[in-house]
């Protein structure tokens, strides 16, 4: 015990270094977290008084087909958007980083542009692009003699549109993440590989991927967490009511229950279930991508 105290005393500077986050956490998050746990066992309309309902909120949730539908939509959108996007982002980052590529700065900003375009505009643009009757994409499809696609009439169509929106917004973002990872790989490693006559593919799998592992773990973790918290894209595209099939995600479901229907207690319960799900998947990710350093 005395040894531990001594250790702690020895590490006092380190505790000081990490303290800002935890001080902020104590001040701004601890009470809200406890409050929302408490809330998940109550019925509350946000203004009036609360009444205790035990496990009713959780019970209702597990029997609500809308909740499960939201879960399915969410997982579908997440997989559709993130899998292909992360792979593409990695390829793009790798290519931009090649020594033969000119105008690196231009490409970097061009791919990042979608991420810095405000959502207000993104919605109007995507609605105009994917309209069933007057969408730009259907206009071109018709020009090419193809059939129009009724994007908003099937859950698959809607999920594809939302996934595209997410992929579009975050492709360059993730490419920049990978790019900063690539830039810390010493050039001599590549030069040595070149001298040994390695192909581009070999250098990619033998040098780039292993050196990038911790960064890939970061991007996978973040897109998992982000993927289960998809909210803005479907909300702005379809509104809080999500009248289109397949557009409702869990956070959207939670937001509507809380802020539109005034079931704050229920919304809190949903958010804690969501927390557990994200936690479980994150642990899985961690184990999968992080074999060596933990």
């Amino acid at each position, binding site marked *: 015990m005395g040894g531990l105290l001594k250790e702690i005393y020895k590490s006092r*500077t380190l505790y*000081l*270094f990490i*303290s*800002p986050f935890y*001080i*902020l956490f104590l*001040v701004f998050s601890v009470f809200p977290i406890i409050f929302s746990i408490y809330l998940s066992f109550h*019925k509350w*309309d*946000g*203004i*009036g008084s609360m009444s205790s309902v035990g496990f*009713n909120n959780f019970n*209702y949730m597990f*029997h*609500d*087909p*809308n909740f499960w539908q939201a879960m399915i939509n969410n997982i579908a959108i997440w997989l559709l958007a993130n899998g292909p996007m992360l792979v593409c982002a990695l390829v793009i980052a790798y290519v931009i980083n090649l020594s033969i590529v000119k105008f690196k700065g231009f490409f970097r900003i061009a791919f990042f542009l979608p991420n810095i375009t405000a959502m207000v505009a993104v919605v*109007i643009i995507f*609605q*105009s692009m994917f*309209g*069933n*009757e*007057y*969408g730009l994409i259907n206009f071109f499809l018709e020009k090419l003699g193809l059939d129009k696609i*009724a994007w*908003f*009439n*099937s859950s698959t169509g809607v999920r594809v549109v939302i996934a595209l929106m997410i992929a579009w917004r975050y492709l360059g973002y993730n490419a920049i993440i990978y790019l900063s990872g690539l830039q810390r790989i010493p050039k001599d490693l590549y030069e040595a590989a070149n001298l040994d006559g390695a192909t581009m593919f070999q250098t990619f799998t033998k040098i780039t991927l292993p050196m990038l592992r911790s960064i890939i773990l970061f991007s996978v973790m973040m897109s998992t967490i982000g993927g289960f918290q998809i909210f803005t894209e479907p909300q702005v595209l379809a509104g*809080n*009511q*999500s*009248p*289109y*099939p397949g557009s409702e995600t869990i956070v959207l479901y939670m937001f509507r229950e809380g*802020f*539109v*229907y*005034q*079931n704050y207690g*229920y919304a809190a319960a949903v958010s804690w279930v969501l927390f557990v799900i994200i936690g479980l998947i994150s642990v899985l990710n961690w184990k999968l991508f992080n074999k060596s350093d933990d």
Partner: protein
Amino acid sequence: MKIKSLTIALLAILVILALTGCGQNSNNASSSGNGNENATNGKVKLKMWYWNGAISDSTIEAAKAKFPNIDLQAEKLPSGGDFLTKLKTTITGGGSGPDIVTMDSWISTMLSYNEKFVNLYDQGARDIQSQYLDWKWKMGATSDDKYLIALPIDVAPVVLYYRSDLFKKAGVASTPEEFKTQVKTWDDYFNLLKKVKDETGSQSGTVVDIFRSLLGQIDQSFFDLDGKYIGDQAHIKSAWDSSVKAYQAGLTFPFSSDSEKNAAMNNGKISSFSGASWAVGDVIAAAPDTKGKWNIAYPPGGVGNQGGSFMGILKSSKYPKEAYEVIKFLVSPENLIAGYKDFGNYPSTPEIYTKPEMVNENAFFGNQDLSTVFADAAKDVKVAHTDTRDDMVFNEITKALGSVDAQKKDSEKAWKDAQEQIKRQLSR
């Protein structure tokens, strides 16, 4: 070593900021509690929240001139759901925000918390009650009419917007007068639409738009006065059936987004729709290529109401008396005319409907005087009892209607599924 002490200093500042920030600022809070802030130049400070298009800027300027002893701070906030979210959070957090707040048709959800608002009957609101449309006034009062949380601003009577050129081409009723006399029921309207569609290929609004209009015309909604669910009964089912019938006859524009509807309007694919008075601006903005071809008429099946706003005073206000004088002035009949001129907010004070200032001949509508139609519609509005759970029910039903259109779901099955879902929601 120097760097180390620098960090420590920085972190110390952080800690001080995070912790003593409380002490320092609660001082401020308590001083404002003493009413200190108002001591500044002896003026009464009133903060007002509204959104772009709720109240005319010229009216606010007029109020500032009229009450020199009041420092009126009018804050224009983002509109719609965001406004409601901010208002609710402020009330949940115990008020301490604005004195005067603007409210939209969601006022019914605020009525359940009437104790958070000043009872305007105590401030003498009975004296001006007769100036306003009765049905509108009552929307701001509790059902026993003892507590009034807000004064009416505008009403949003629903009328029929239609392309007179297309209707003329189809050889059916095409003037507002013909509509008023010949198109009394929804079936009359659907018959006309059928001819217009065959002749010109254009349709009405979506199946959901039709349902919403039908709903606005019945004097009962989803819940009765005791809060019992009646949304599965004949009055709702028949509105559902009529909407589905119109859809099945191919009369409705496919269920989709606003930008699709706007584009359809601009491209002559929508021949008519029923919409509230504020839709005037929508049509003009969305369909400039069709200028001069539109008219409005008394709608089939009677009029309904969609929207229209109110102004109330939060209980946390220190100057309810002064605040009341301000809102009384802002929503006085003469001042509402400015709002009508600026944004098309149709006043809720019938005495001015016939005034010459109200004449509103709009070139976009072939110089038809819109006010006469609105005045006609505003007086006949039927108001159904509202409930905080209306939104949920309405969303479930429109989602089901949308699935009938977009996914070709069987209408009876969609109705049954929606009702089941609603009842499960209500069972909690």
